[in-house]
């Protein structure tokens, strides 16, 4: 801890933040997990999915973009906040087509894992929007099923900022806003299977699919078969 460090609390736990850190960054370092979907380590913060909503001094903010402030009281895991988060996750399920039993990402899917973590165990009440978007299987090594896209934009930022390419971008507005590719289809872009944007850690769901590697890891041995989403961050605190 240095002189400039900031201290605040999350659910009563004292947290130290370096100057300029967001609430989420400080929480991650301290081993306190704040649920998130559009935020991902190594990528710019977006603040779009709102799953990381916390109350900072009573006010709703996105933990991924809100700077940590000295003396701030942050509420994270309260029944009320987790209910808001569950609503948001349910909205994402209902906005797209998320049929876990037939999805290659099942078990590795952050949306599914978040639903488990937030105890989305009852029948949902929202209507299904049932999009019907064409699959893009044009690329030799990669397929895209945007019916499963949750508009997190992680692929957009990874491709632009990490790969220096800009394969993806948002088009449209409102409920029609979606991720599209920089060309007629994926084959007409400079996308490559070795891109960070195409790696299995960037797409949180089963939208970006790498061909010929599906189901290589059997169900039961997948990422979230090991623990609830967030277990790695929470593991830091338990030591």
């Amino acid at each position, binding site marked *: 801890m240095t002189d400039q460090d900031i201290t605040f609390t999350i659910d009563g736990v004292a947290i130290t933040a370096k100057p300029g850190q967001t609430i989420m960054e400080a929480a991650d370092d301290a081993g306190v997990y704040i649920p998130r979907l559009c935020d991902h380590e190594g990528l710019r913060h977006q603040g779009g999915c*709102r799953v990381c*909503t916390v109350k900072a001094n009573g006010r709703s903010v996105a933990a991924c973009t809100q700077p940590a402030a000295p003396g701030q009281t942050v509420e994270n895991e309260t029944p009320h906040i987790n209910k808001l988060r569950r*609503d948001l996750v349910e*909205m994402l399920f*209902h*906005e797209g087509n998320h049929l876990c039993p037939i999805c290659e990402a099942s078990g590795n899917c952050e949306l599914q894992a978040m639903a488990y973590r937030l105890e989305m165990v009852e029948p949902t009440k929202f209507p299904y929007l049932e999009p019907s978007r064409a699959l893009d299987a044009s690329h030799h090594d990669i397929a895209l099923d945007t019916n499963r896209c949750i508009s997190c934009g992680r692929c957009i930022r990874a491709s632009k900022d990490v790969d220096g390419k800009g394969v993806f971008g948002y088009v449209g507005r*409102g409920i029609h806003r979606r991720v599209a590719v920089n060309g007629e289809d994926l084959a007409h872009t400079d996308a490559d299977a070795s891109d960070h944007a195409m790696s299995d850690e960037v797409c949180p769901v089963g939208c970006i699919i790498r061909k010929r590697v599906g189901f290589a890891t059997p169900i039961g041995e997948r990422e979230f078969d090991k623990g609830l989403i967030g277990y790695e961050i929470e593991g830091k605190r338990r030591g």
Partner: protein
Amino acid sequence: MATNTPDEQMTGPAVSVPSIPVEEIVSICQTYGNDRHRMLDILRDVQDRFRWISPKVMETVASQTCLSRIEVEGVASFYSFLSQTPKGRVTIRLCDDIIDRFAGLAAIAEAFEEELGIKVGETSPDESFSLEYTPCIGMCDQAPAAMVNDVVVTKLTPDLARQWAQSLKAGKSPEEIVSDRFADLSPHARATAQVDNNIRHAGAVLLGPVPDDAGLKTALGLTPVQIMDMIEASGLRGCGGAGFTTGRKWKFAAAEKAEKHFVLCNADEGEPGTFKDRVLLTERPHLLVEGMTIAARAVGAREGIIYLRGEYVYLRDLIEEVLADRRARGLLGEAILGVEGFDFDLRVQMGAGAYICGEEGALISSCEGLPGEPKTRPPFPVNRGYLGYPTVVNNVETFCHAARILDRGAQWFFDMGEEGSHGTKLFSVSGDCLNPGLYEFPYGLTINELLEMVGGEDAAAVQVGGPSGTMIARDSFHRRLTFDDLATGGAIIVFSGERNVLEIVEYYMSFFVHESCGYCTPCRVGNVFLQKAIGKFRKGLANPEDIDYLKDLSGTIIETSRCGLGMTSPNPILTTLKNFPLVYSAMVKPSKDGIRATFDIQSAIDGARHLAKRRSYIYDEDFSK
């Protein structure tokens, strides 16, 4: 994945279009210095000249501005007035506000459809016409209204619509239909030939007599700090709706050390029912620029932008003329009024059909040539705004007030209105009243007093502040128009007892669904769910528990949305649930059998029936017996 569906890619657009010469696109980009921050201007020019933004155009624009095609497409696909399919030589946009609907929009649409031989949403095969709906164009006091290319037509009747369609078909331009000598008219005369001001009550500050540049002259004798102290002491608060103290906003921006500062005017009043800035832009454009110049002096800005909503394109020439006149008279440009070092100039940024751009972060994004998405806060615009520089964004009315305060003094302004709500306010009144139009009054008026003046005593409901504000019933008409009671950006919409409250609410929700930028989950998705739920109520398919569902979902959207749009979009539902509870309870039916009223077993199994090519043994009667 590409924007065009595979079908469009293969067969090309539905109508044949002349190819767009690459060199013309290059030349448009060069007009704006190939600057990606001027993307909206570039794409607007392309749209105006070639009536669509083709994939090829996007590639050319991208290469000129050093962007990728998908980034250009992101902008082109965001704004309603930009099109990725070819539009007709004349695009008729019928204002689809609830006020226009109540004023006979359906008959107007029918008249246009019959005369033009196309339905709303279509373009004629010979590319002559496109007919479409657009949300509120700021003409609620003279509805039904429409835009015909860059011209506005108001007080439409089916006969007038037919006349317009026939004249257009005969080859007349929209401008020629407005006036045979349109080109000879002054920009002000052109504007008032299209749109009435409808000033019903002039107050002391804005709509009464105003001397030329008296405020600016006072400002020249003051230090920046003295100017800002004066604005703060006057009690002036932002007139766009949020009501932030103007003097403090200016001080925050001035305190920020930076190479440049900017002053932006928000002339993007898109809140349905609001049209006050339209009248100020028409009748007080000099006062507006004077106010911006004073703000520039205060915060140390040398550049400014007036962000003019796309629907007000008919006012562009008027504003440009005012800017040219002021430059010629030494009121804009270098060494304003001979004061060495006092340099300020500004440009007009046209919007292109996006309500969200009235949100200050989204407005800044739009000025930067990006999709109109709000920015992450903090940093706030006063710290890091336009292009990353400290930026003051104020509403048209706010700047006009500021200029008047400099002339007449802080105390003069402070003494009007009441504690916490000082000065006068413009109210845009429309709907079921005898005298719709613009009223300027000190804060503190009650709704009853206002209704009496506008001839709206029969009102059963008043929408204060537009859809993002509050819908109140008769039992609240004693309430007062102040920041602490009924806060409003200025829209007052009067509804008589004959109007269906749920129809109004459903319209407002469809408006928010149309205008959500889509950046954050709750606003993008949640508002669609609210709209669907209200649809259930209107069809009589709602259960009693659906009332709790509405409240619950609204709460989540308000608490988790990223900007003011989502934080207020459930207001039409929440305020009517509170003030008109019987409207909802009359529409719900408890189900007897435990099956939700919305569940229709027959339609649910219909798909399976078709697949199986036979009836259902359980749910279909066997008529053969």
